[in-house]
């Protein structure tokens, strides 16, 4: 069987045939080892460059505010914001946990709902005809319009309205992406399953669902940061005053501008955490596959 090894080295180890896709994360040894040191160097610059840029922006910002004498309501100095972050830190953690919790609950609900609806729509034509326009219409719904209505429906002493807003926002990208993935069956797999006399259910279980997984994960990655945005914006319209969004609006209303910015900074961090978690989940799940949905 020496011939086999010849084959694998001759093609450089990453013989993906006609499937060569971007970002061969799970690629075989040889190519990765060669690219190693160079990639590590690039990895460092990927982190260092934006950090230097960010520090530079903060320094310029500080100078413009202090030297230029900008009024605090227009733009507070970074040092003033940092001071507020320190002073409000326990409150920031508490409110971030509430908003993060709402975003997470809504994200999970919307994700499960989006995937289930897409599977249902893929299996039953009638369901697809019924659901697709509704979901697409939902993508055009501004959550701004929904938030006060939900608050009135469920009362202002519960987290339900915010979570529902997040759910609606999340369902759309997850449904669209999953539905697209379920349609992406390669013709050769289609033929194969017919030749093997597979039932519809087997076809879905063995080919369509696993094939759609990268698309499902892309939907999750897109939805994760949107969930945080929805959770924060939903708080601007009344209800409980325990999240980041309500703190931002009340601080701004009380002319405590530096404090408002401190909560804005916390919101940015929360959004980044969700974004990175979504990205990591996508990478982990699709690491053994060539190509992918993105």
């Amino acid at each position: 069987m020496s011939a086999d090894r010849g084959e694998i080295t001759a093609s450089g180890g990453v013989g993906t045939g006609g499937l060569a896709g971007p970002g061969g994360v799970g690629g075989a040894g040889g190519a990765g080892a060669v690219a190693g040191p160079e990639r590590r160097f690039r990895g460092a610059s990927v982190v260092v460059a934006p950090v230097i840029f960010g520090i530079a922006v903060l320094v310029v910002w500080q100078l413009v505010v202090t030297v230029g004498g900008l009024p605090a309501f227009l733009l507070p100095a970074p040092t003033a914001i940092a001071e507020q972050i320190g002073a409000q830190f326990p409150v920031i953690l508490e409110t971030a946990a509430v908003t993060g919790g709402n975003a997470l609950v809504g994200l999970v609900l919307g994700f499960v709902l989006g995937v289930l609806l897409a599977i249902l729509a893929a299996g039953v034509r009638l369901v697809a005809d019924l659901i697709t326009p509704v979901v697409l219409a939902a993508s055009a719904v501004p959550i701004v319009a929904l938030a006060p209505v939900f608050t009135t429906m469920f009362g202002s002493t519960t987290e339900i309205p915010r979570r529902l807003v997040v759910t609606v926002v999340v369902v759309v990208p997850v449904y669209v992406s999953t539905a697209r993935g379920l349609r992406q069956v390669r013709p050769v797999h289609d033929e194969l399953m017919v030749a093997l006399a597979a039932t519809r259910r087997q076809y879905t279980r063995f080919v369509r669902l696993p094939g759609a997984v990268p698309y499902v994960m892309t939907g999750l990655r897109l939805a994760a940061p949107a969930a945080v945005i929805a959770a924060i914006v939903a708080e601007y319209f009344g209800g409980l005053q325990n999240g980041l969004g309500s703190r931002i609006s009340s601080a701004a209303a009380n002319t405590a501008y530096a404090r408002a910015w401190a909560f804005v900074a916390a919101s940015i961090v929360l959004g980044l955490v969700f974004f990175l978690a979504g990205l990591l989940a996508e990478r982990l799940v699709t690491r053994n596959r060539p190509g992918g949905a993105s």
Partner: protein
Amino acid sequence: MTATGTDAVELQGVDKTFGSVWALAGVDLTIGAGEFVSLIGPSGCGKSTLLRVVADLEEPTAGSVAVTGTSARQARLDQRYGIAFQQAGLLDWRTVVENVELPLQVHGVGKAERRRRAVELLELVGLAEFAGSRPAELSGGMQQRVAIARALAPSPRLLLMDEPFGALDEMTRERMQAELLRIAGETGAAVLFVTHSIPEAVVLSDRVVVMSPRPGRITEVVGGRRPPVSGDDRAADTLDPDAVEDVRETAAFFEAVTAVREALRKGAATDGPAA
């Protein structure tokens, strides 16, 4: 399974039209048990359509189709044939051994039994050590061998192959031809093999069926130059690639290649002004 005496394929007066396009006209073809038959012809001569009719992926417009002594549909439902396409068509998210197990899994064979069978088949195609690999880690030739192992999983009496080596480079292709002959010999399965390559058809086949287009029909049948393999004669050693290479250099091989080429040219000549 079926009695060894039953013909693998029996086609009588098979017509197939797609709208106004006449893809197949009056095709009669019988493939005996264990026989290796190639279909060759220019693009559009209906050779792939013919294979798809046998596989029950297309229904004939007229004529009768029997596969291993039953209807094409029943043969498909019973997984009496194995099939391999030009693309290996492996499922990227499954390991190599899980890909080979797929037909058995579809047919509800138990986990332990189908794993045992799949490992056995990977040994047959010489890829036992790659059982746990992902398809993307394999070269094109190796992927195609996995696809052949998958086709063989239900122990079919008939193997349908639609240009399975068409996407491979010449060296890999010739090695795969030798492998295929050995495998066909060891399993005793009949093979219906669609190809564009004259030498490939000649070296693999007991019979080369030459087709011509508009409408797709059989114009001539030429004897192939298949070297003797272990399945033909149990006393002989397992076929090694050298035996196939030797065949490629015999006068009889060149004669058969010439005969097929002339048959193809004759088919093209009767094609009329459209050609």
